[in-house]
């Protein structure tokens, strides 16, 4: 009975808590100086639009805008796929690195060491030039486009980092919890699934999101191996238009677009970290 009442109280207390939390996040967004900068930038842009005195460089930027967005879509696509592959692979590697067999642990340590200490650019070159441009599967010849090779090139360092995040999270759970669960008659896999893993997932989220932001920023390197991403589109636009003011505008737009994508992720990460620190 006592349990029931606390449960009810807990639930009753949680509902408005969640709502105020959402409201708090929204208020944080409104107060964020970068959001205010964005609003302040929108005012002159609207004025130029309405008054019809748009400078040539800005007009060209609007002309190139859909192409830039397609480029950004490519970056996002690469980052999402690379992170998905990296997470799956990383969890497997991380799980092996916790195995009681020494040779398995040593091999995962070597894997993590190699892919964390290699420059990402070199790995991207590696996968782009070493893999063939098409693969024969049974009777068909499937194309192997460059952007998928970049996905693999980014997934390798991502997996090494995920493996470290996973290992760190599992090892950060006090050993006493393993012992306590053991003494209650839980098996190793049971302890892992019902006691350790739920706590790990919460701990892994902030560093995982940091990694996602960092992988997203690394997708800019795809332009160096000929993938038509945002950076490549901006370079093409700058060379086609060939005006000094347009070149300045487009490169700083590039900076702003990446910032607009990565900054909210990093703010959310910090918010989660702070919330986790209170627990």
């Amino acid at each position, binding site marked *: 009975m006592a349990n029931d009442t606390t449960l009810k109280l807990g639930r009753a207390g949680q509902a408005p808590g969640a709502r105020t939390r959402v409201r708090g996040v929204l208020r944080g967004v409104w107060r964020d*100086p*970068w959001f205010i900068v964005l609003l302040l930038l929108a005012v002159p842009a609207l004025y130029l639009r309405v008054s019809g005195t748009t400078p040539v460089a800005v007009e060209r930027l609007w002309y190139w805008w859909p192409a830039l967005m397609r480029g950004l879509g490519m970056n996002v696509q690469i980052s999402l796929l690379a992170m998905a592959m990296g997470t799956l692979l990383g969890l497997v590697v991380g799980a092996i690195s916790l195995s009681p067999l020494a040779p398995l642990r040593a091999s995962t340590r070597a894997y993590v060491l*190699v892919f964390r*200490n*290699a*420059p*990402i*650019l*070199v790995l991207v*070159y*590696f996968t782009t*030039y*070493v893999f063939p441009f098409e693969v024969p599967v049974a009777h068909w010849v499937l194309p192997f486009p460059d952007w998928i090779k970049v996905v693999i090139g980014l997934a390798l360092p991502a997996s090494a980092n995920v493996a470290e995040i996973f290992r760190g999270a599992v090892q950060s759970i006090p050993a006493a919890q393993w012992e306590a669960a053991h003494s209650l008659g839980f098996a190793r896999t049971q302890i892992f699934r019902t006691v350790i893993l739920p706590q790990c997932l919460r701990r892994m989220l902030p560093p995982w999101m940091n990694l996602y*932001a960092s992988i997203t*920023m*690394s*997708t*800019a*390197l795809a*332009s*160096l191996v000929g993938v038509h991403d945002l*950076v490549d589109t901006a*370079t093409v636009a*700058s060379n086609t238009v060939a005006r*000094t003011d347009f*070149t*300045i505008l487009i*490169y*700083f737009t*590039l*900076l702003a677009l*990446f*910032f607009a994508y*990565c*900054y909210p992720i*990093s703010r959310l990460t910090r918010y989660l970290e702070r919330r986790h620190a209170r627990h």
Partner: protein
Amino acid sequence: MTHSLLEGWVAFARPLGLNYAFVLDAGERAAFVHGLWVTLQLCAASIPVSLLFGVLIAAGLTSGRAWLTRPLAAFVELTRNTPTLVQLYCAFLVLNMLISQKLEGGNPITPFMWVVLVVSLHKAVFHAEALRAGIEAVPGVTLEAARSLAFSRVEILWRVQLPLALRFALPALVNNLVDLVKMTAIASAIAVGDVTYESIMIWSQRDNVLELLLLILLYFGLLTWLVSVAGRWLESRLRMPGYGQ
């Protein structure tokens, strides 16, 4: 002597399916060795510059003056949340172009210097975050003691806060420096002749991408290992009983 050694190596690698014949060509060997040297120079130049900027930014961030901390905080956010490659383009393709136009051709800043500047500033931001955490971890009583001994603000920062913050932040700083070494590979994007760029030049002549990439990975592995060994040595050297992690 060296030539026969190199020949032996090529003969050893061939049965493994690796073709290192380029080391027997004097021109390509010289280009590759020069690339190794340029990467080393890039690291040697960026590490001290990044630490210097890192200390300056950290000092600014902890100064408590709004006109200094606000723009610096904005710069930190901007640098952390944009790709280094795009920053390099903004610096080299935009700022460098503007400087060249102003000076009409006589631009004294080389691409090498731009890479050092961009990479160091990028990592300086991460150094500054680590150092700031270290500065803020200095106990208040220590600062009160320093103030009661009539230390000025700069003296407190330089003689009390930074030495303690350095010990606190050293593991993070070494991590950042390892990242910095890896980051110098983007120099190849603006045709600075580092090891990556020279390798691209070589493998576009011959079909030996895998061989060269293995060499590059080994080289970066060596450099990052040296940085982490130096960091560990410094950590044990600077350790003060009862302070730090």
